[in-house]
């Protein structure tokens, strides 16, 4: 555990020593707040109005944007995780230290997840306080939604980190990670088009369904936690396999 924490601390320090974390904060936080207040969520079967138009003291619109915005935010946080180690050659040193591959992967995953959670909290809490000042906000819904967002971020981080391990360069890692996560987000859009038996399976497979239909609405469902737990485990396991394969192939 100590070694995982050492990797985690180094990754966090590296994130804040480069402009990457600040750029992500500067773009993500105002963008999501702006969409919440002014645009609403015009995607899906029932479009949701923005706060000013809808006039409801709810953060549902804010949470609704998360699966799509995270599809680009999380790959921005993971793109350097492996590609940069490979470019600089530090990966070679790292794996000659007495560390298990799984420990390195876990440390990197936790760092990305913590950063994503930090960004999420930095977006949701100021907006929630503002809305609470304007109307009667149900804080229990906010906390459940925030928790759901954290879990969603964990699933996305595991997938994006895995894609980053496959990519040779940071930009490729970002683009491929964004493409994969955007594809997972878009699965829900196909639900209305496909025959019912396919649609049901697709809806269950889409990460967004396990957030938007439950914790984003203030409902905590154990099945969603199991779903994201499995997504994280499979993502990290594949990540370990990818790294190990590189050490076999050379």
């Amino acid at each position: 555990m100590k070694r995982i924490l050492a990797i985690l601390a180094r990754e966090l320090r590296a994130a804040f020593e480069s402009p990457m974390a600040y750029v992500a904060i500067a773009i993500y936080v105002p963008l999501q707040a702006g969409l919440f207040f002014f645009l609403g969520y015009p995607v899906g079967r029932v479009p949701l109005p923005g706060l000013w138009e809808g006039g409801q003291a709810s953060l549902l619109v804010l949470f609704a944007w998360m699966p799509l915005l995270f599809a680009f935010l999380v790959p921005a946080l993971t793109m350097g995780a492996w590609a940069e180690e490979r470019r600089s050659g530090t990966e070679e040193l790292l794996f000659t230290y007495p560390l298990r591959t799984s420990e390195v992967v876990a440390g990197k995953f936790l760092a990305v997840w913590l950063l994503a959670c930090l960004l999420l909290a930095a977006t949701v809490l100021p907006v929630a306080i503002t809305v609470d000042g304007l109307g009667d906000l149900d804080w229990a819904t906010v906390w459940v939604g925030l928790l759901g967002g954290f879990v969603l971020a964990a699933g996305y981080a595991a997938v994006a980190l895995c894609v980053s391990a496959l990519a040779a360069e940071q930009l490729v890692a970002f683009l491929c990670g964004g493409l994969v996560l955007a594809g997972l987000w878009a699965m829900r859009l196909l639900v209305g088009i496909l025959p019912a038996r396919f649609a049901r399976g697709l809806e269950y497979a889409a990460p967004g369904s396990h957030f938007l239909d439950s914790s984003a609405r203030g409902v905590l469902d154990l099945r969603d936690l199991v779903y994201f737990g499995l997504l994280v485990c499979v993502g990290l396991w594949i990540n370990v396999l990818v790294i190990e394969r590189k050490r076999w192939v050379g």
Partner: protein
Amino acid sequence: MTTSPPGADATSPPVIRASGLEKRYGDVRAVDGVGFEVRRGELVGFLGPNGAGKTTTMKMLTGYLYPDSGEVSIGGERLDGPGRLAARARIGYLPERTPLYEGMRVDRYLAFVGEVRGLSRAARRDAVARTVAACDLDEYATRRIRTLSKGYRQRVGLAQALVTDPEVLVLDEPTSGLDPVEIVRIRDLVTRLSEQKTILLSTHVLSEVEEVCGRVLILAAGRLVADGPLLELGAALEAEEGEGLVVVLGAPEEEAREALAAVPGVRSVDRVSRSGSGRLRFALTVSERFEVAPRIDELAHARNWTVFELRHEGATLERVFLARTRGLLRRSATEASA
């Protein structure tokens, strides 16, 4: 059978043991059945032409790459066994390109390496202070690595290999690209370290190996083609190919070359160089120097040439290196073109 070089503990079990190492990259066989042992206290030079498989072998010795076949043990623990983390903890490694986390401060980077290598907080503080002092990095400890010159970055690379005071050091071209002052500093540091540690040193600088290494391993086309103390390798080469003689003459070049080649016992005229004062320096390979030298002396008197120097030249590392790698390089070039 080779004798143990100075510094090595001949009675102790080997600290590094590699056997039957093989590694392929696609169709290319980078390392082909390499095996050797290094005992406690040895400083072993690891040589080979570019593409010989040195770096790949080092990557397998340090546990970064997994061999296709064969095995590596460090201090008795196999790198592919349950004790692999303990085995890796015994090794300090400086890779060829000196990869470092550029954005980190030197002291924080060393503390990070100490932490992932299992040092407690208090032990880390001491280890960083000791390593910084040993590598003459005191003034630069709080500087970010990206701001350091190549020589100091190399020292940081060495410092990370030393931070847990491992018993084995694997150094891949530690003086590559450095200025002469830094080369001497790093070489002195390696020599100092060799008093307490077992070191495998890869380099292209043959004089460096002659100066500091008690034993030499030479790799060519992925195979180990020589292993032993330099004196033994030289003696073996002389027994096979003949002894070296150096003759410095005041004579016409073409006439002298032809006449020397015709002297009974001269096997080849290897090199001819001309000094600023017009003297010609011939390097010869002869069957028996005590018989050939008087014949050369007689030849010079008969032709009225001046002999400035006539001496035996033992097999240098350069000669050993060229002789041992020549055949395999030719073979691998032929295979590549086939």
